[in-house]
């Protein structure tokens, strides 16, 4: 079986998945405006009261930049902002750069790279933002590495902002886990199918299938509860808080503890063996 890079897999997922991040579509625009509103309100939070005059903002897993550009726009009303957009997908970064130029009038820095190695690519930032419900991409092991890495990339008083929904509640308690989940857009029907559960990683493997073209891509999802991720953030940061947004939440963490560095996190051997007991 040919091995795809993380970037290739993500490109295929996003080409199939109807994720509204095209900034010139009505839906994309609406999400951008909504993000600006959420961040305007967030500026009053005590965690954001001590931001320096020149804010270094990193939008992690930026996609086409909706979150990062919206936050930069909001902060720029009061302070100067230098925005860095980071993603694995070169195509998304290209759109994000153009959008940032349009909205902010200045060129952002873009970094193509893996969020699990953030600290190797970007340092000394004031705010790391993860906007657009990207948490399900991370299993708990990766989440631990992610938080250690973000902690290294931030300044001592740095802030991490993560947009999330309570997937544990929504998926398991409210709706019930679905083996088959169809979605419709224009002339396309997309089936989101259960493929297996990986005990060692805690992920549900789903297959996205286009009914029209038959194209298929696998997608690993971890259904994070708010408490589970926020408690992990607390182990890596001295202060945490939870703010309710519009149907989503913002998880906030400030002042990285830096007690556990990414280099001290060597994955257990049972995760390196390949067979994860997927069912």
């Amino acid at each position, binding site marked *: 079986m040919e091995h795809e890079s993380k970037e290739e897999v993500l490109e295929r997922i996003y080409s199939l998945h109807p994720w509204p991040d095209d900034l010139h579509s009505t839906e994309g625009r609406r999400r951008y405006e909504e993000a600006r509103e959420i961040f305007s309100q967030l500026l009053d939070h005590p965690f954001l009261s001590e931001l320096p005059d020149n804010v270094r903002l990193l939008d992690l897993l930026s996609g086409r930049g909706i979150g990062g550009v919206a936050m930069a726009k909001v902060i720029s009303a009061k302070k100067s902002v230098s925005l860095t957009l980071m993603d694995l997908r070169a195509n998304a970064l290209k759109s994000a750069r153009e959008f940032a130029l349009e909205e902010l009038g200045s060129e952002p820095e873009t970094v193509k790279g893996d969020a699990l190695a953030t600290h190797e690519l970007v340092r000394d930032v004031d705010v790391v933002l993860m906007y657009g419900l990207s948490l399900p991409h991370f*299993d*708990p*092991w990766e*989440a*631990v590495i992610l938080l250690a890495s973000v902690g290294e990339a931030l300044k001592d008083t740095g802030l991490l902002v993560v947009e999330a929904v*309570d997937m*544990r*509640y929504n998926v*398991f*308690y*409210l709706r*019930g*886990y679905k083996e088959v989940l169809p979605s419709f857009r224009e002339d396309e029907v997309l089936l989101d199918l259960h493929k297996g*559960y*990986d*005990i*060692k*990683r*805690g*992920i*549900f493997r789903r297959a996205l299938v286009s009914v029209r073209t038959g194209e298929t891509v696998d997608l690993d999802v971890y*259904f994070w*509860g*708010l*408490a*589970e991720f*926020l*408690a*992990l953030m*607390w*182990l890596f940061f*001295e*202060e*945490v*808080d*939870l*703010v*309710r947004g519009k149907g989503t939440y913002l998880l906030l963490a400030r002042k990285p*503890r830096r*007690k*556990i560095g990414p280099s*001290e*996190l*060597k994955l*257990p*051997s*049972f995760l390196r063996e390949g067979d994860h*007991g997927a*069912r």
Partner: protein
Amino acid sequence: MALADDMNKLYSLMPWPEDLGGAGRRRYESAVNFFRGLVDHPFLAGGEVRLLDLMGGVGIGGIALARALREAGRHVELTVLDLREDALSVARDFSVRELGIEARTIVGDAFRVRELVDEVDVVLIHGVTMPHFDPWRSSLLFSAISSVLTQNGTLLIHHIDQVYWELYIHPQIDTYAYFKRGDVVLSLKASYDPATGYIERIICSLITGEQARYHVYQWGMAGMAALMWVFFEEIDMVPISEDGTVAMLLGHRPRGVLEPDDLEATFRREEFLTDIREALGWKDES
């Protein structure tokens, strides 16, 4: 002690086999068998083992592990800690019968383990106990446990993947009834708290009307293991059931960098869990 009373009531209503004649005995025998295969694990090396069975109840897990270690020629000192003195007195009798020596027993709260116990080599949490602890409390517990373990110490957690069994395979079972010694007990899911991830359950005897409420956090195997990884340098997952959904999680070499005081400081400074509940502004009443 209010918590101890609650736990006594809870365990009197729960379908958990603690009688060492029937089902409890079978649970003990299967634990001994499993531990016989585990004693050669590199995380459990060393001829002298000071073993702490934390929240040990009647001591089934600790006594089983002690027996397997002794059969392998190791010297074992067993301590069983639990909130319930009734359970601990059973543990003392049982340890004399099984090991020929009486286990040391301590009545106390697992969070205060540092004040109650001297240094140990192995801490065991047996019998799927972690659902009593949400991710916040589990973290505080791991931090407390780390402080009593030696540098080469190991935490063993016996766990079942609840995300798999309870949320994926059998999600419909949120109300059920069971029979216990002539009693009929009804267990109901009452609410979900997003700040903690806890499900509140109410169990109620249909015969006596007696009730108990308790909280459950439904831990996946990976979620639990990765949280242990924050506190321990090395992690292993040893399957107990063939499919691996029941397993022993091993955390070896405590990092010792997240002290309980440092973690609790977050709560003291902010009292943020209260804020979080208010910020959420809702509680699911299903």
